[in-house]
């Protein structure tokens, strides 16, 4: 079971949360102009990174707020939590998911973010 540091409530059991998949996927600005390929990319294609992955979580039985989390998909180590709409803390450009993260919103040993 993951111990997830909700930015509002502190560390809580994974069972209180709902997973939202890859973060930073914006709704297309002009959906009507997309090709079938681009629309398929938006609907069905998501990164499936092995390593540091930026993802969305909802604290559904707590504060009911969405937030982003940077988590290693191999070790399941939680590296940072940060508000939705903010860029990924571990890199200037959010293009690939392979470089080692430098955490700007550190997670304390207890997992609490204050």
């Amino acid at each position: 079971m993951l111990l997830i540091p909700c930015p509002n409530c502190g560390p809580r059991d994974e069972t209180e949360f709902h997973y939202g998949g890859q973060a930073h996927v914006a709704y297309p600005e002009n959906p009507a102009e997309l090709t079938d390929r681009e629309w398929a990319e938006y609907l069905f294609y998501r990164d499936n990174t092995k390593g540091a992955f930026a993802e969305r979580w909802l604290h559904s039985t707590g504060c009911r707020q969405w937030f982003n989390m940077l988590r290693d998909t191999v070790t399941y180590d939680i590296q940072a939590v940060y508000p939705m709409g903010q860029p990924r803390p571990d890199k200037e450009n959010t293009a690939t998911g392979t470089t080692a993260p430098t955490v700007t919103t550190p997670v304390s040993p207890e997992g609490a973010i204050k």
Partner: protein
Amino acid sequence: MTTEHLPEHPDFLWRNPDPKKSYDAVIVGGGGHGLATAYYLAKNHGMTNIAILEKGWLAGGNMARNTTIIRSNYLWDESAAIYEHALKLWEILPEELEYDFLFSQRGVMNLAHTLGDVRESVRRVGANKLNGVDAEWLDPQQVKELCPILNINDNIRYPVMGATYQPRAGIAKHDHVAWAFARKCDELGVDIIQNCEVTGFVKDGNKVVGVKTNRGTINTEKVGLCAAGHSSVLAEMAGFRLPIQSHPLQALVSELHEPVHPTVVMSNHVHVYVSQAHKGELVMGAGVDSYNGYGQRGSFHVIEHQMAAAVELFPIFARAHVLRTWGGIVDTTLDASPIVGTTPVENMFVNCGWGTGGFKGTPAAGLTFAHTIATGEPHKLNKPFALERFETGALIDEHGAAAVAH
């Protein structure tokens, strides 16, 4: 005890060759699908100068981690066709591979616990019959007759309202299936190369011409990806994307017990499926963990949830002890159907997306994927399962038949 008393080491079932400089085709992944693909490439298409590259040990991925359920009672015509073809192959493979891998057609029951379940199940039974797949709808009393240890009373959270039943479905011993294919592949001349991790691809323009591995670069005319949970990682190395998310899927076994469970029982609604292995362990599978993961382990609450459901349905399991739990990494698609076909890279082919339920598909995946690799064109059974369906919208939604369960 001295070494004199030790028995002779049994014969090895396959050689452990070093990789050659070049092959006509290279299969990435030594699970069931990679092995079956190589087998049919050699047997049906005469391609014997081929290799299977496996980063770990043979069948160390999902192949020997699954709960071995084999059935073909899927809803849509495309799925019924490929899974039923697989089931027919399972029925002849022990003889063809000259290996009794304990394929036991003890039937599979899919329980219904809600009115929605009942409607979906009855509809699926009808669809199955039209597709020549053996299927029956059982009322709770008939469920009880077939599996006396099941609790069909109203005193549980989700009482049993009936079940679909496929008598020809069942289980097999997964590691023996892998060894059976491996021995035949080896006999036909296929090189099975373990501890050989693919780390990249050599391309000439958009055409793949070689694979880079931790044991050197290997030239090849064709590459077939059978990497299950790691398919996205390999596709990324080759320069294309797949609509796959990798999730941990867990299972567990109890200690050995007297035979008490005559069939296979699955419940999508309460997230558990149970059979009893030949040796006597109760084998139970859980649902996937919600998060993406490559760690070959999942969260304990998923196991707890599954056990709670199992004990309600099978009160006599309350005193059984868990012996061990484990996880595998499953490659899920959004329509719960596999992807078998060509890729945007020339001479590279992909077989993936079998997710939580690809053990049963092993022979058909191998047969159709071998056809695709050898001829460059899909077999009629895997044509609907092309990558393009995510663009055309011709999805094959099997969530009703596949969802949690297998």
